[in-house]
C-alpha cells in the first residue's frame, strides 16, 4: 500500500480520530448541560430570595431523634443530626446484608435439597417473600409488633433482665468496665492470629497435603482470647439492668420495634432473591464436576466447599452485589415505619431549613457512597475468586 495515501486521509474520514472527537463533544455537551442547570437554578433561587448553601450544618437542629448510637440531643447541630441518620442507615444495612447473605445462602441451598419437604418449604418461602412488595411487608411487621406486644406496664418478662413490649426488646447489658476494652483488643488480636494461621495452613497443605481443622481452631481463638482477657482483668459481672420508670424503661439496651421491623422486612425480602441467585449459581456448575469430586472420595460437605461453591461463586457474586445494593437502597423506606434513617433525618432537615436542593443532593451522595463502597468490595471479591488462568 502507498503510505503517503494513508497519511493523507482527512481527520473527518478517519474513524479512530472521529471517535475521539465524538467523545469530546459528548462530554462537553454533558458539562454544558450541567453548567446550565446549576447556574440557572442558582440564579432563580437568588432571584426568588431563597437562601442556598450548606451553612445550616452548624446551626442548632432543635429536633429530637428516636434512636442514635452516638450522643445526640436537640441542642446539637444539623450536621450531627445527619451523622446520626447516616449511622442508623449504616447499621441497618450492615446487619441486614450480613443476615441476608447467610439466610439467602441457606435457603438457596435448601431449595436444592433432596429432602422433598425442605425443598418445597424453601420454594414456598421464596415465592411468598419475593412476590409481596417490600413496603407492605414493612407495614405488616411493624403493625405486628405494636399490635401484638403489650404496653410497657404489662411487658413480657420471660427471663430476668429481659423485657418485651410495644416499645421494643429491652435487655440488661454488662455495666461498663475496662475488662471489656481488653476483651475487645484480645478479639482483634485473635483476628490477626487467624489471618496468619490461614496462610500457614495453606502453605502446610500445599507442602504436605495434610489438612488442618482451621474453622474449629479459629472459633476457639476468637472466643478463648477475649474470655481469657476478661478473666485476667477481674471477671466483672455487674449488670446494667432495665427498670420501668414512668412511661418507659430506663437502663439496659432497647431494640426498637421500628428497627426490628425494618431489619426483618429487608432481610426476609432480600434473602428470597439471594436464595434464587445462590440456587442459580449452584445449578450452573455442571454435574460432571460434582461426580468427579465424589469419585475421588471427597465427602459431600467438601464437595460443596471445595468444588461446587468456588465455581458457583463466580456466577453468584455479580447478581448478589445488586441484591445487596437493593437492600441498602430499600432501607430508605424506613421513614414509612418511623425508623430515623438518613432519609428521615434529612427530610426533617429539609423541612426545617427549606434547603430542599442541598438536602436531596446530600441524600443522593450518601446513597451513592453506600452503593459504591458495597460495589467496590464485591468487585474486589469477585476478582479474587474469578478464574485465574495459569
Amino acid at each position, binding site marked *: 500500500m502507498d503510505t503517503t495515501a494513508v497519511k493523507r486521509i482527512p481527520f473527518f474520514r478517519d474513524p479512530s480520530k472521529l471517535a475521539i472527537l465524538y467523545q469530546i463533544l459528548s462530554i462537553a455537551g454533558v458539562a454544558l448541560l450541567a453548567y446550565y*442547570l446549576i447556574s*440557572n*437554578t442558582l*440564579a*432563580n*433561587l437568588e*432571584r*426568588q*430570595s*431563597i*437562601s442556598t448553601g450548606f451553612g445550616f450544618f452548624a446551626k442548632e437542629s*432543635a*429536633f*429530637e*431523634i*428516636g434512636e442514635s448510637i452516638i450522643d445526640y*440531643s*436537640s*441542642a446539637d447541630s444539623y450536621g450531627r443530626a445527619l451523622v446520626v441518620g447516616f449511622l442508623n442507615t449504616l447499621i441497618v444495612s450492615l446487619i441486614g446484608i450480613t443476615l441476608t447473605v447467610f439466610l439467602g445462602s441457606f435457603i438457596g441451598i435448601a431449595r436444592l435439597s433432596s429432602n422433598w419437604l425442605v425443598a418445597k418449604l424453601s420454594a414456598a418461602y421464596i415465592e411468598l417473600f419475593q412476590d409481596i412488595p417490600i*413496603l407492605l411487608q414493612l*407495614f405488616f411487621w*411493624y*403493625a405486628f409488633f*405494636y*399490635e401484638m406486644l403489650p*404496653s410497657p406496664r404489662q411487658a413480657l418478662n420471660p427471663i430476668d433482665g429481659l423485657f418485651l413490649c*410495644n*416499645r421494643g426488646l429491652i435487655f440488661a447489658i454488662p455495666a461498663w468496665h475496662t475488662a471489656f476494652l481488653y476483651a475487645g483488643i484480645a478479639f482483634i488480636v485473635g483476628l490477626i492470629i487467624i489471618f496468619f494461621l490461614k496462610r500457614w495452613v495453606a502453605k502446610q497443605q500445599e507442602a504436605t497435603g495434610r489438612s488442618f481443622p482451621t474453622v474449629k481452631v479459629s472459633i476457639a481463638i476468637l472466643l478463648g482470647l477475649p474470655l481469657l482477657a476478661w478473666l485476667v482483668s477481674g471477671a466483672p459481672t455487674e449488670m446494667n439492668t432495665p427498670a420501668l*420508670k*414512668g*412511661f*418507659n424503661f*430506663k437502663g439496659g439496651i432497647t431494640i426498637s*420495634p*421500628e428497627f426490628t421491623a425494618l431489619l426483618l422486612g429487608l432481610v426476609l425480602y432480600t434473602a428470597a432473591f439471594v436464595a434464587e441467585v445462590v440456587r442459580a449459581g449452584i445449578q450452573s456448575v455442571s454435574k460432571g464436576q460434582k461426580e468427579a469430586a465424589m469419585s475421588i472420595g471427597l465427602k459431600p460437605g467438601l464437595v460443596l466447599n471445595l468444588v461446587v461453591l468456588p465455581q458457583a461463586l463466580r456466577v453468584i457474586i455479580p447478581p448478589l452485589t445488586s441484591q445487596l445494593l437493593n437492600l441498602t*437502597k*430499600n432501607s*430508605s*423506606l424506613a*421513614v*414509612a*415505619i*418511623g425508623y*430515623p434513617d438518613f*432519609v*428521615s433525618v434529612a*427530610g*426533617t432537615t*429539609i*423541612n*426545617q431549613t*427549606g434547603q*430542599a*436542593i442541598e*438536602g*436531596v443532593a446530600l*441524600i443522593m451522595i450518601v446513597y451513592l457512597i453506600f452503593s459504591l463502597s458495597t460495589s467496590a468490595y464485591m468487585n474486589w471479591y469477585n476478582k479474587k475468586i474469578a478464574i485465574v488462568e495459569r
Partner: protein
Amino acid sequence: MKQLTRVVPSVVAALCLSASIAMAGTLDDVKAKGFIQAGVNGDLFGFAKPDSKGVWKGLDVDTARAIAAAIFGDADKVKYTPLTAKTRFTALQSGEIDVLTRNATQTLSRDTSLGLNFAHVNFYDGQGFLIKKDLGVTSATQLDGASVCVLPGTTTEQNVADYFRVHKMTMNPVVIENTAELSKAFFAGRCDCMTSDASQLAGIRAVAPTPADYMLLPEIISKEPLAPAVRHGDDQWLDIVNYSVLALIAAEEMGITSENIDEMLKSTDPKILRFLGVSPGNGESLGLDEKWAYNIIKQVGNYAEVFERNVGAQTPLKIERGLNALWNNGGLMYSPPFK
C-alpha cells in the same frame, strides 16, 4: 423509596424553575388558563380532603374557592394539588401552584429564606398533645420520658423538642410521615402521646376506634397561625389572596351571610354598599370585578359559615371558635376597612 419519589419531583421542579416561572402577572396567567391551581393538604379532615363523592371539602378548600369566586365569579374554578408538608413550598416556588392553602404556619424563616409571602391568617392554631385518658396524665409537664408520636415535615418536631428541653424532660420521638400510619401506631399504644396542631389532633381523635378514650391536654405549646402563601414578588396577587380571606372576616363583622346577601344589596349602610360593590371602587383597585366580594360571600359564605361548616361544633372535629372568633367576641379575627 416512597420518600424519594415524593421529594425528587419537587427538586426536579425546582431545577426547572426558569422554565415555568412568571415572576409577575400571576393574575393574568390565572385568567388565561381559566382556573386557579391551589396546593392543599388532601388528607386533613376539616381543612382539605375530598368527601365520599370526591368533592373537595374543608376550610382551606373554601379559602381557595373564595379566591376563585373573587377572580372568576365562580368558586368552582379551582384545581387542587394535594401536597405533603415537605413538597408544599417547593411546589409554590416552582410555579406548580398559584396559591398554597395548606394549613401552613407563617414563620419568619419561611417568609424570608423560602421566598414566600403570607396572606392573612385563616386559622389560628397551636400545637397540643393528644393522650389516652387511662394513663392518668393531666398536664404536659408530666410527660417526662414519654414516647411521642410526631408527624414530621412541620414545625411540630421543633416545638415539641423545645418544650421538653425547657421543662428539663426527656422524650423518645417516633416520626412517621403518613398521618394514617402514625395514628394507627398511636392508637395501638406505640406512643404515650401524640403531638401536632390542636386542630389536626381533633381530626385524629374523631377517627379513633373510641374517640371518648382520648383527650387533649390543656397545654398549647406553640403559636401556629395558618395562612395562605404566595410567591415573593407579585404584590397584586398577594393583595387578591389577602383580601379574599379578609372579605370572609369582614362579611362576618358586618353580618352579611350567603343567605341574606341579596337583601344586604339594598342596605343603607355605605360600608356594606362599598363592600358588595354597589358603590364601586374596591374591585377596580384590586384589578377585579366590582362584585368580587359579593361573589365570595354568595358562593362560599362568610368566615363563620365556613368555620362552622368545616370544623365547628356540628362537625366531628368540634373545634370551638376560640382565637378564631371575631375580635369583638374575644378572638383575633379582625379585618381592616374595605374602602
